[in-house]
């Protein structure tokens, strides 16, 4: 991947803007993810962090700016986006498994239809990835028969079956019952240990603190601060970061006086 003038970044986002009609959600984002790095994106809801992630594989079309993947510019209008997307695994908050297909077929359909792998090879790779996420006994079940945690792990296995260079996670545990979150995080942690390049939008601060190489805090469509978790989470420099973290880490202590419409304004 060094033929593109030694661009070492797995993902390089530059000057990214995204508007939905009048609403400007991303107001100039620059972020780089190096190969093997785990970057967690945190921030209040509506801060644009999910939109940023969705711009990285062009599920959302950026209004301005560039996104490059190991030197390949995705935002080039002549790029074959389907080809590029094969290299990026994506995991959604709501799993988005294909309900009409069995678990194994969920893992093989894109391998066969997109990569052109044969049935046997696709199933072998699919089973290997199911073992990797610990749901191999469910290969003939349908998604509706699985718990949320199992569904999300199958979704991760589905993305991994395409042998992606990097994985995007869009709030992968937000739709899960609290007792199921751990299983999914454990799978993601192992993936990180194996050296997978990962960009993770999450509210799980303990995961960000322990697994991330770098944490990006976003608010209002801009990156407020970024750095190692020990700094951004452990010792935030900005007031907005501190306010957000205190609300997330200790929700019971939230002070609502600011929101309760002070009289005379």
């Amino acid at each position, binding site marked *: 991947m060094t033929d593109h003038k030694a661009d070492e970044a797995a993902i390089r986002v530059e000057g990214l803007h995204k508007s939905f009609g009048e609403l400007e959600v991303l107001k100039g984002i620059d972020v780089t993810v190096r190969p093997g790095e785990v970057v967690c994106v945190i921030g209040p809801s509506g801060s644009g962090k999910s939109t940023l992630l969705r711009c990285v*594989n062009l*599920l959302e079309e950026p209004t301005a700016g560039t996104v490059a993947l190991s030197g390949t510019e995705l935002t080039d209008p002549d790029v074959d986006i*389907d*080809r590029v*997307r*094969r290299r*990026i*695994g*994506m995991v*959604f908050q*709501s799993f*988005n*498994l*294909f*309900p*009409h297909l069995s678990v194994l077929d969920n893992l093989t*359909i*894109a391998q066969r*239809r*997109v*990569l052109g792998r044969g049935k046997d090879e696709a199933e072998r790779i699919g089973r290997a990835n199911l073992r990797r996420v610990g749901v191999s006994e469910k290969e003939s079940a349908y998604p*509706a028969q699985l718990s949320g945690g199992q569904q999300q792990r199958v*979704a991760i296995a*589905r*993305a991994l079956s*395409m042998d992606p260079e990097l994985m995007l996670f869009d709030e992968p545990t937000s739709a899960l019952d609290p007792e199921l979150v751990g299983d999914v995080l454990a799978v993601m942690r192992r993936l990180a240990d194996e050296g997978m390049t990962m960009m993770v939008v999450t509210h799980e601060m303990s995961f960000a603190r322990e697994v991330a190489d770098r944490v990006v805090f976003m608010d209002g469509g801009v990156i407020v601060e970024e750095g190692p978790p020990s700094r951004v989470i452990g010792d935030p420099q900005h007031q907005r970061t501190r306010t957000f973290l205190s609300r997330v880490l200790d929700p019971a202590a939230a002070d609502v006086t600011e929101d309760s419409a002070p009289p005379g304004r």
Partner: protein
Amino acid sequence: MPMSRRQRTRTVRGVQYGVLALVVAAMAFGANWGEIRRAFFDLDVAQALFPDIITTALVNTVVYTLLGFGFGLALGLVLALMRLSSVPPYRWLATGYIEFFRGVPALLVFIALGFGVPIAFQVVINQYVTVMLALGLVGAAYMAETIRAGIQAVPKGQVEAARSLGMSQGRAMRSIVIPQAFRIVLPPLTNELILLTKDSSLVYLLGLSLGQYELAKFGRDALNENRSLTPILVAGLCYLIITLPLGHLVRRLEARTAKAR
């Protein structure tokens, strides 16, 4: 003294049953039972209808319906995809087609196709092809709207998941969206099949040879021959042989869909 809610419900229900009983009694006494039996339940006439009413008429009705349904389903799918297309002329064309064929009586379509097209293009079209086209053209307009609704009922996340795995728009449509859409629209599509079964009675407009008679035409011919309405009753029962199981199927499919959600 004011009635309680329970008493009121009972009184209202009692009145309803009373009215119903009165209507039934009036019809029972007012009708000429002898005439009704002669006109509708002439066993000799009924017997003479068999086995042709089954081996020819019923079979033809099923064949015509399936021909029309198959063609209509294929065309309906194309129209549905056109309606959802990002290319404006496709949308206009599909919308125009659907509005036209939904708004025009099937009877006129049959006549136009059966007589107009051969004259306009100086061609002789096979009778079965004409039937397939006529029934299918009308059915496609309704099925297109049903299928479009089904495609739109598939959550957006399904396409996003498919695209993020590298599938093209068309591949995602074929492998992910359409199979799910058809599951959703299976009950209304079966209803469409029932409607087409009855619309197939219009085939007589095309002029049929004896071997091509379907149920309605067969019944009407027998009616003229025998001066008895019995063939109409028997033909009606034959339609029910087709449509009642389909109706049952619709309810089962709907129950299955309800459970899957």
